[in-house]
């Protein structure tokens, strides 16, 4: 059972590592403690096999350390979503609370249920991604453009890749949105348009348009 402090450090190292190699001095600043305290802590973490320190790469999480860190981050962010989505707090008010709550979960089942009731969100209210479940990273199936599907395929729209928001909005009004189910009925000759079925209606989509719609197989 890891102490709260240890979990905090791991979380901090995880977040900092997203910006580059983690230096002990920076870590001290972040955690608002003195450098000797950090040095002490890092030794303990290293003994537990959670981090590895080197002069070249700074502080790095081991696989075990990474798992733990991700879990903490995940819980923190899930709690933030709970506070905003269910309790209705403002997104700028939830960080502190979540910091305390994240250490309160002791079993993965509770974490799962929390994720369930929130509908398995992928980002916290601030837009940061919520890491995959403890252990296995969920590998998302590769999304491919609709234009690469064949007749008879059914897929789910993941996103519409386009800087042109006009096309996005036009498609949205037809129901071609993320999570919508698309079935390919027909493809015209000479790389012509695709005939698809979406929300009970049929549309002919030109190849260039279909190429911008990213889908995942069911």
């Amino acid at each position: 059972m890891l102490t709260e402090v240890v979990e905090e450090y791991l979380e901090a190292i995880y977040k900092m590592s997203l910006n580059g190699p983690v230096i002990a001095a920076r870590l001290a600043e972040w955690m608002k403690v003195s450098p000797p305290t950090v040095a002490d802590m890092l030794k303990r973490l290293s003994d537990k096999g959670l981090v590895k320190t080197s002069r070249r790469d700074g502080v790095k999480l081991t696989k075990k350390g990474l798992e733990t860190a991700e879990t903490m981050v995940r819980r923190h962010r899930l709690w933030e979503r709970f506070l905003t989505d269910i309790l209705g707090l403002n997104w700028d008010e939830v960080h502190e609370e979540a910091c305390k709550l994240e250490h309160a979960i002791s079993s993965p089942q509770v974490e799962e249920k929390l994720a369930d009731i929130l509908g398995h969100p992928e980002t916290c209210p601030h837009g940061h991604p919520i890491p995959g479940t403890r252990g296995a990273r969920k590998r998302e199936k590769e999304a491919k453009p609709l234009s690469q599907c064949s007749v008879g395929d059914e897929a789910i729209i993941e996103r519409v890749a386009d800087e042109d928001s006009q096309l996005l909005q036009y498609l949205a009004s037809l129901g071609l949105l993320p999570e919508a189910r698309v079935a390919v009925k027909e493809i015209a000759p000479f790389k012509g348009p695709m005939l698809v079925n979406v929300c009970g209606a049929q549309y002919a989509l030109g190849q260039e348009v279909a190429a911008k719609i990213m889908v995942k197989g069911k």
Partner: protein
Amino acid sequence: MQFSCHSALNKLRGETDFTIALAGNPNVGKSSVFNSLTGMGVETAHYPGKTVELNVATTSLNGMNIGIIDLPGTYALGAVSEDQWVARQAVLDGNPDAVVMVVDATNLARNLYMVVQFLELGYPLVIALNVLDVMRRQGRDVDIDRLSILLGVPVVPTVANRGEGLDELIQKAVEVARSGVRPSPLGISYGLDVEKNIRRLTDAIADAGLEDPYGLPHRALALLLLEKDPEFIELTSAMPGWEPVLELAVGLRQKIAVEHGQSAATRIAGERHGLAGIITDEVETRKEDQKPGWGERLWRYTTSPTTGIPILLLVLAANFLILYFLGNALAELISTGYANYLADPVRTALVDAYGENLVTLSIIWAMDGFKAALTVGIPFVLVFYMLLAVLEDTGYLNSVAFLTDSVMHRFGLHGRAMIPIVAGAGCNVPAIMGTRVLTTMRERVIAGTLIVLVPCSARNAVIFGAVAFYSGWQSTLALYAIILVLWVVLGLALNKMLPGQTMGLVMEMFAFRRPHTTTILKKTWFRFRDFVFMVIPLLLVGSVALGALFQTGILLDAANWFSPVLQGWMGLPPIAGVALVVAVLRKELALQLLIAMALVQGVDPDVRNNLNAFMTNEQLFVFALVTAIYIPCVATIAALARELGWKRALMIMGFTIVLAVFVGGLVNQLLLAF
């Protein structure tokens, strides 16, 4: 008749007791409703710079004058595409007392998207739930009362093309218009997180106490700003006091984007769509799956590449044949009838009474021009419009567009352009007017130019008479091959050179529907009427002008003046030049004129049977080629002007002349060299 939108809408408001706007998705039967409610007094209006048109009409009910604005069929209101922009702008400008939304019951969820938008905008609404009969046949049904409660507005079931339910519809609309009660906001709202942001902005707008553009409710404005609607952002940026609200909107848009991983506009669209779906689920019931009807089965054959293409070729061939043979037959009939009963008697009467002077000859030319209108208009244009209306109403046009889109894309066109282009082989005039089904001006310009290069039956007659008869079928094929090459090269070139992009194809496909005679007839009539009003004056004026030029001998002088080009480069005698100019009136006259001119010049009367008397086969070839390429006939010019504007029409004219002279001369030089 055309008006600018603003004046048309103002006029409507002034003249009527109530104004009602008709809205709905494309192909839901909105035009059936409009046609049933209005008589012949339909005026079209359009916003400057936009090609989409608005139909405006009045009708009376129980002694009240009611104005009806027929908005273009769109899937949503917004600034995303031209038709959506026009639809929304017309509603905002027209400020109707009530909006009637025609909803396709078989596609409720998607149709409800725009219903929700209208409710958000706060217009008094009545819903016409159309095509319920088809829906029931499919084994589904809608709980109309529940729908009405959920939306908070009256819902009237209709079968528009049979005229059922329309009386009740208009009654309800007038009721709603009279009461002036705006619908209350929907009981159901968007998802919590988005709703939070919407409310924050709505409150900010309310608190600021600012002037509301178009008098729209605060929530509607908040949504428009969150959707980053370019029109409204521009509008409010220019209005004093809106800066803090706009800044807040920017911040909230970012927030939504971060929270949901997609732009705020897309998120809101998604929420709206979700809302429409929820409502649909609540009111729609479905029984067991029914077998697909004849419409659906037939339609599948037309869109599958293996069966669709042969069917397409058949249909195109049938179209062409009908136009060609039926058209020509009718033209002949009218021509002889006109000559026997009108033209000849009048001519003899005039000449007997006043002799042959400038005035009488001009009148005779004018009558000839009128004859042109009749023999081009009725047979070809009318028949084409009827064919087009049938293809449109059954929905076959979409199958055509689907199959041919990729090929057409090389030319910067969409599959829909196929039909007018092929129709050009019968007669260019209705083909050009048929480019109206294309959505952007760029497409219309390309299609229009390409149509002009398709030899119509008149030009084919010249080609056959001048080349096939004298030089044989190989030369004829060669001539057509030259035209084909020109056509392809031009199409590809235009696509590369003209600025703008053809937007990717996104087109709804629906199963076949039985076409309804009254709708087809009305559609045909409206389009034909446009043609008549535009073309006939031009033909008359053109005929008189040409006649004067011809009779006074100016044309012959001009032809002599151009002889370096005419004779030197193209190798044609001066009288051929005159014939070419006069043939602008009627292309097939080119040959007759050639003969007539030859006779006038004193050539052996045998020339009637043998053009070789004064022109070699090579000259005839060049003559036919030039006839096929240069300026289309007067009627075509009129049609071009109508559809594309005079500037573009004249440019196309100039271009074809240059092209004809260039290619004609080139061929001549090549022939001489060998």
